[in-house]
């Protein structure tokens, strides 16, 4: 099972909130926990902010965001944030905690550290004058929660995949429907699909 979305936004700071909300809404289809969703939104915000304040520092360019969700036993959300800005001269140094090129602007220098800590994988490629690409992924462990649901409800493990696919099967007579679960803060609809 695979789902994806693509987004292009101008590098304006007011789009930081839009970008993380859009990715959060996409990720919410996989029914992440509140903490998983917060981690994803924070990491996207960091990557987009980097493109705005560093990549396109003195100009406005385009930020390209791609998200892909793959579901097997676990669900993996893969997010790519790409700009065509000035690039990072030394990626390794830029990824050191507390490193910042703008200390007088009160930058914390924690952007990449946050992405590394909150996501499972992080890959940064950059070329001077050509831009930067940040790829990151996080596993949403549907399998574990399916087992918990199976134990509690007696419903088959495939129910969660049906949820991800947006299938709305009606329970047969005498069958129990999925229990109400604590919804994450960004949902597309009442059923999250």
């Amino acid at each position, binding site marked *: 099972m695979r789902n994806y979305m693509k987004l292009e936004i101008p590098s304006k*700071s*007011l789009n930081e909130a839009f970008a993380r909300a859009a990715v959060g809404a996409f990720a919410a289809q996989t029914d992440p926990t509140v903490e998983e969703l917060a981690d994803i939104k*924070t990491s996207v915000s960091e990557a987009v*902010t980097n493109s705005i304040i560093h990549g396109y520092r003195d100009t406005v360019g385009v930020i390209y965001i791609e998200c892909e969700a793959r579901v097997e036993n676990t669900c993996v959300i893969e997010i790519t944030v790409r700009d065509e800005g000035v690039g990072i001269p030394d990626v390794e140094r830029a990824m050191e905690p507390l490193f910042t090129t703008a200390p007088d602007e009160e*930058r914390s220098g*924690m952007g990449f550290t946050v992405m590394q800590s909150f996501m499972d994988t992080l890959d940064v490629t950059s070329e001077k004058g050509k831009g930067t690409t940040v790829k990151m992924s996080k596993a949403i462990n549907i399998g574990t929660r399916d087992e918990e649901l199976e134990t509690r409800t007696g419903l088959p493990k495939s129910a969660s995949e049906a949820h991800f696919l947006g299938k709305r099967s009606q329970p047969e007579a005498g069958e129990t429907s999925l229990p109400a679960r604590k919804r994450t803060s960004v949902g597309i609809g009442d059923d999250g699909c």
Partner: protein
Amino acid sequence: MNCEIEQVGGALVVKLKGEIDQHCAEELRGDIDRQLDIKHSASLIIDLGGVDFMDSSGLGLIMGRYRKMQARGGKLLLARPTPAVDKLLELSGINRLVGRERTK
């Protein structure tokens, strides 16, 4: 982002609500620093109870206010961070530098 600032005794209390990112951090910084300069507060309490989202721009804001209060011999306290915000504070090491206001 909504910001309410009031002087309570010797402390400037800043109550933040909404989302803190780079887009609003600079304006927040200006608002807080202006009041600190006017009121000459001995301490600054930032109430994070209403903050539903914060990224490293918020960390920069807090670190900057910590340095400012240190430079003037005052102190910074943080109050009521949500679990997501507290996770970020812990990661940054701010929790080891900045005290926690527990009465709010």
